[in-house]
């Protein structure tokens, strides 16, 4: 199961890639994070095997996943270790994957294709959340997050 998105930006391929990766902290919505502390910044390390993580306002760090492919300015793939409680799950078999492709359509136009796939792998934990309807970890928390995004 996957979510596929396409966005076309008015910039060259190099620049589009750089803002996505090196500039990750400049655009990632700070409301979307999984650490316990409020998020100060989100960081995507620019190398294969690098970390993808957030740093909280209290200096704590919370991993999101790893950089699986780093191929500037064409492609970046990261794993997303999100479990049913929206916390880091170290088991790679339960991680989903986000692939982002940068396709030059002209010197100043780049098409960015994003595919978030295999999130059914979050499966077992996700089911626990779906059935645990009380508390922030259950549907209430998910729906609140959803409503915030939908209303943005």
């Amino acid at each position, binding site marked *: *199961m996957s*979510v*596929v*998105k*396409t*966005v*076309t*930006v*008015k*910039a*060259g391929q*190099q*620049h*589009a890639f*750089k*803002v*996505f990766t090196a*500039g990750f902290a*400049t*655009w*990632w*919505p700070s409301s*979307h994070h999984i650490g316990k502390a409020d998020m100060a910044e989100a960081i995507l390390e620019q190398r294969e095997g690098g970390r993808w993580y957030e740093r909280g306002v209290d200096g704590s760090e919370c991993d999101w996943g790893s950089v699986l492919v780093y191929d500037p300015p064409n492609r970046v793939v990261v794993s997303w270790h999100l479990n049913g409680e929206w916390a880091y799950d170290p088991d790679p078999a339960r991680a989903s994957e986000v692939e982002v492709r940068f396709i030059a359509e002209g010197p100043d*136009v780049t098409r*960015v294709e*994003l595919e*978030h796939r295999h*999130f*059914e792998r*979050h*499966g077992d934990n*996700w*089911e626990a*959340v*779906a*059935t645990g*309807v009380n508390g922030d970890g*259950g*549907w*209430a928390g*998910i*729906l609140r*997050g*959803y*409503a915030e*995004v*939908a209303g*943005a």
Partner: protein
Amino acid sequence: MATYRTDGLGALGDPTRRAVFELVATGPKAVGELARELPISRPAVSQHLKVLKEAGLVIDDAVGTRRLYRVDPSGVAALRAYLDLVWDRALAAYAAAVENTPEEPS
């Protein structure tokens, strides 16, 4: 210049339908019970449940003479709808950042 796919935003995009879903998420409910707790008619509740069912968010069971709706325990459709919106929002912010960040001469 930014274009997005707006299809597939998910059955939860409608606030009333989200309210129906939230009530169903508190435990199995019949159409009548939902209609009593919401400011909408039974046919309207049924219509929202139909959409939620088609989206894979709820399932229904016959219990005696009643039909009860409950959240689909796999929950994957809800996760998909949620992630769909997360990425819409993130990519909108990304597109704005690309165009507002000065390009370094290469």
